């Protein structure tokens, strides 16, 4: 299953995605966050040490946490600011941390959190605006490592066809 999280107010992006995905019979679940309340991560670490796997911030992010252990891919559609994802897009990544555990191990020569679930969810970005694309690509690759996953790439909203070609 491909999980799409649209953090922008622009549903024409997901309309276009739907069209493209339907033509390729891609099993997708789309979450539009414009009607949801998703707060930032507050760094409490409760998801690791008090309520394992559950976020202490009780808002609509839980729907993402429920879907992630069953998704092969997650695509975050985000506006950009200051050369990077805007705060809404970054919040989606920051709040993923309950899918890791407090336990640590070395992968290669770097330490990582031991994943909570068996499934690995690769991540991709579809962005609006003018971020520093090279940095964003590098960052997404690095962010994915934290979930023992891979980067699916970083695409502008003009490259939806290319993004869909990476979906399975």
């Amino acid at each position, binding site marked *: 299953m491909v999980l799409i999280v649209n953090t922008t107010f622009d549903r024409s992006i997901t309309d276009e995605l739907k069209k493209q995905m339907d033509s390729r019979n891609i099993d997708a679940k789309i979450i539009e966050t414009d009607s949801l309340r998703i707060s*930032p*991560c*507050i*760094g*409490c670490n*409760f998801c*690791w*040490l*008090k*309520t*394992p*796997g*559950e976020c202490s911030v009780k808002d609509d992010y839980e729907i993402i*946490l*429920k879907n*992630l*252990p069953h998704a092969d891919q997650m695509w975050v559609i985000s506006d950009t*600011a*200051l*050369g*990077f*994802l*805007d*705060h*809404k897009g*970054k*919040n989606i*990544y*920051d709040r*993923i*941390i309950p899918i890791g*555990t*407090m*336990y*640590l*191990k*070395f992968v290669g*020569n*770097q*330490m990582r959190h*031991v994943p*909570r*679930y068996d499934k690995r969810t690769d991540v991709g970005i579809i962005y609006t605006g003018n971020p*520093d694309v090279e*940095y964003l690509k*590098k*960052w997404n690759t*690095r*962010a994915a490592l*934290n979930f023992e996953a891979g980067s699916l790439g970083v695409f502008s909203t003009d490259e939806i066809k290319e993004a869909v070609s990476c979906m399975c």
Partner: protein
Amino acid sequence: MHVLIINGSPRIKAHSNTDKILEKFTKGMTSKAATFKQYEISDRKQWDDIRKAFDESSEILIAIPLYVECIPGLLIEFLETLTPKKGDARISFILQGGFAEGIQLRCGEEYLKILSENLGCTYGGTLVKGDNFSIRFFEGEQRDKITSRYEEMGCEYAVNGNFHSEKCRKFTGPEILSAPVRLFVGLLQKTLAKKMFARIAEGWGCTKPLDYRPYQ
């Protein structure tokens, strides 16, 4: 030198590791006659005051915990509301994280250069250091053992006005841990560390195993 300091941690001040680091860092700064005013990004009631201080300051320092390889979403939300300066200010950063290896913080550090440009400021460098996860679990001398190393860096910053010196660069420590250390730490993580985490969790009222899967 007078410095606007922004604690960019979303965690409330009482539990903020970044704040404990700043306590020592500013002690070093003031010993070299620098002055500062510190604000907390975790307290939205301060945001108007921080914006005003940003507009009026020429020397700015943001202390940041690494969140998924970059800066926290809450800090981005605040920074989005700023009017960029016109090159008339210098901005420096303290970037800290839980993992011990310097390499874990480099992707975040790279963004801070991009951010400085987007905020219209001259980049004063970033003081990079990991291995800070346990700060909140300790008090007194045990905590000081971890945080006091920042005092000297506060002196260094007050004297130079940036983090470009060799001393600051070396402060990061090893980029990756040596193979024998990895072997030892890896073993520790499978044994003693698990017990320690379980003890902390119990103290926090946790009733489930730490690898519990609520959404399986």
